[in-house]
Each structure stands twice: as C-alpha cells, then as structure tokens.
C-alpha cells in the first residue's frame, strides 16, 4: 500500500509539472500531427492505398512520438538534479521506475487519445474499440522498456541519441503485432482474428514489466 502511495506521488509530480508547463504533450502532439501529414505526401491519397498503409503510418508515428516523450521524461529529471533528489528519498529504485512509468504512460495515452481521432478523420477511417485496446496494450509495451532505456540514455554522453537506438529494435515485436492487429481492426475483422497478435503484445508487456522492474536499479545507481 505504501509502495503505491509513493508511486502515485512520483507520477503526480510529473503530471503536475506537465500540466503547468505543457511542454511534452503539446510538442509531441504537434510532432505527431506533422508526421501523419508528411506520410500522407509519401503515399498519395487514394482510399485503397490508405487502407493498406494506415496501420503502418499510425505505429511509426506512435513509436517516434514515444521516443520523443520518453526522452523528456528523464532529461527533465537530470537537468535540475531532480534525479539525485529522488534517489536520496527513502524510496526504493523500483518505486521510481513504476512512478516514472505511470507518468509517461499517462502522457502517451493523452497524446494518443487526441491523435487517434485526428488520424481517423484525416484518413477517413472508422475508430473502433479494438483499435483503442491495441493502442493501450502497445503503449504499455513501449513505456515499460522506454522508461528503463530513457533512464539509461540520459546517463550517457550522447543522451537523447541513445534512446531510439536501444528502444526501436527491442520494441520491434510490439510494432509488428500492433501494425498487424490495427490492419485487421480497420478492415472490420472480429476479435478472434486479432487474438494471437494481442497475446504477443500482452506477453511482451508482462515480461518486460518484470524484467525492467528488476534491472532498473542498476541503471540509475551512482
């Protein structure tokens, strides 16, 4: 119980500073829109090609948006020496991990909640519950490994350059499954045909939640 109180305190701190500055969500949201618009030029506008490439566009956009916003997550902590402050707090490293994870998850979900309807509107697609479920599950996958690697990247010389190099190859299975499942969802398939893809994403989420939780302490120790 006390663990969760501390976790929520950290996530709340991030949310509060985000609400006051609106730095991450607003800039990543604009970035997301730009990527969607630019992809539109790359693939033309015919409805048939759109149905084929839309899932790909969506997940490339969200993966890049994830890299951007996850990078912010620990760069902010590092800049003002907040990370040191957190580390001298009487809380375990794992608490910091879960707290930062919840904060990033919230930001990503807010960005996606705004971007998804715009995406559907621009590409003339129908949003479904399936698409929402896929997005939430895949975002959890992004954030679990992303939080771990963000904390790692910020302590290297190249800082924000390192996160995409680490993050993207590891989340390849999530991207593959999310693209496939979204494609099926957009063409109106039933839940049954999506299940094997969703299972892999859920397995990824569960495995990397545990693994990242266990190794996080080694990433931020000084």
């Amino acid at each position: 119980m006390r663990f969760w109180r501390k976790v929520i305190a950290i996530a709340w701190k991030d949310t509060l500073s985000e609400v006051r500055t609106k730095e991450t969500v607003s800039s990543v949201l604009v970035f997301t829109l730009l990527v969607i618009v630019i992809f539109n030029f790359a693939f033309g506008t015919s409805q048939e090609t759109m149905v084929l490439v839309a899932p790909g566009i969506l997940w490339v956009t969200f993966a890049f948006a994830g890299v951007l916003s996850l990078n912010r997550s620990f760069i902010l902590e590092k800049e003002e020496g907040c990370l040191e402050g957190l580390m001298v707090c009487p809380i375990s490293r794992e608490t910091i991990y879960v707290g930062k994870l919840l904060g990033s998850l919230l930001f990503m979900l807010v960005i996606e909640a705004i971007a998804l309807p715009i995406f559907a509107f621009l590409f003339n697609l129908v949003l479904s519950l399936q698409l929402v479920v896929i997005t939430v599950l895949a975002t959890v996958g992004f954030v679990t490994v992303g939080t771990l690697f963000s904390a790692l990247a910020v302590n290297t010389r190249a800082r924000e350059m390192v996160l995409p190099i680490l993050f993207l190859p590891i989340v390849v299975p999530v991207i593959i499954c999310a693209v496939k499942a979204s494609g099926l969802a957009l063409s109106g398939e039933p839940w049954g045909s999506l299940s094997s893809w969703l299972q892999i994403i859920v397995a990824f989420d569960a495995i990397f939640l545990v693994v990242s939780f266990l190794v996080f302490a080694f990433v931020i120790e000084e």
Partner: protein
Amino acid sequence: MKKNILLGLSFVLMVIALYLVFVYVPTEKEMGIVQRIFYLMVPLGWLSLLAFLIVFIGSILYLAKRESKWDILASSSAEIGIVFTTLALITGSIWAKPIWGVWWTWEPRLTATLVLWLVYLAYLIVRSYATDEERGARFAAVVGIVGFIDIPIVALATTLWRGMHPGPIIFQGGLAPAMLLTLLVSIAAFTFLYSVLLIQKVSMKNDEMEMKRLKELHS
C-alpha cells in the same frame, strides 16, 4: 597450451568440414549447388545465438557479483557474436538471391536475425557512449539481459507476421544422413572456432586491463 590444442582442434575440424561440404556431401536436388551454403549459414546462425546466450549469462553474473571478469566475458562474446551475425546475414542474402531471386526477403529467420544484429549493435554503442567504464559495463549488461529476453518474442512475432508459412524445405522433414553429418561437423568446427576466439579476446582484454593498471601505477 590449452589454447593451442583448441586452435589445432578447430583447424582440423574446419578442414574436415570443408572437405565434407565441398566433396563428400551430395548436391541437393532442388536447389542445386547453392544449397551448400546452408552448411555455413546454419552454424553461423547457431553461433550468434550461443554468443548472445553467453552475453546474457555474463551480464547477469556481472550485475549480481560486480566482478569485471564477467563483463569482459560478456563484451568479448558480444563482439564475436556480432561478427557471426553479420556473416549469417551475408550468407543468408547470398542464399536468397538464387533461391528467391532477390538479395533480401523478409523471411522470418532472416528478419529476426537482422533485429538481433541491431540489438547487439546497440549493446556495443551504449558501452562506447558511457561516461566511464564501470557505468558502460553496467548499462551494457542491462541491454544484454533485455536484448536476449527479446529474442524469442521477436522470433515469434516475425514468424507469425510472415503468415506462418512452413519454413524452407530444410527445416522440416529430415535431412539425408550425409547432409546431417556434414552439418553437425560444420557446427562443431564453428563452435570450436568460437571458443578459441572467445578465449583469445578475453585474455586480450585482461592484458589491456593489466596494462592500464600498470600505467596508472606509474604515473
């Protein structure tokens, strides 16, 4: 001494493997002469997995015990592993050209190998970008653990992604006894080569550390 025995053994096995591949084993009926590259590709693929398993084990032991010998083991194995993975990708392309008519296809095994290659490239990059050595070792170990756990999920996702078509003919059904023998000898030869390289690399890194220590002592 032990090194030389291993080196000699891997040399002899390698010569035998070459003889088996190019002289002894009959040419495969459907794919023709190209199929012989299979006896090179499979051992390379297997070795990259073995090398990364050693990285995984070394990384866990390093984080648990903080002895630099485990880090040296893991990083040496990663460097050798990435060489073998690169070779596996190259031989895979050479194989793909005559069989499928293109240099690269997104065949599940090839795709998974490419992802593997990228993960361990990141492993080496993280180490070189770290601000000090101890930190680099720690970060690399984390990537070594996460990366290895990712491999089966990547393999599963890429297999499913390509529509669960049965793999190339070789992997189902059995191999003819002569082919199996050739493959096994080739795998053994390459495994010995790996262990020789690993021992060399580890002792080289140990010497480097010793040199650095002496230098610091001197200055």
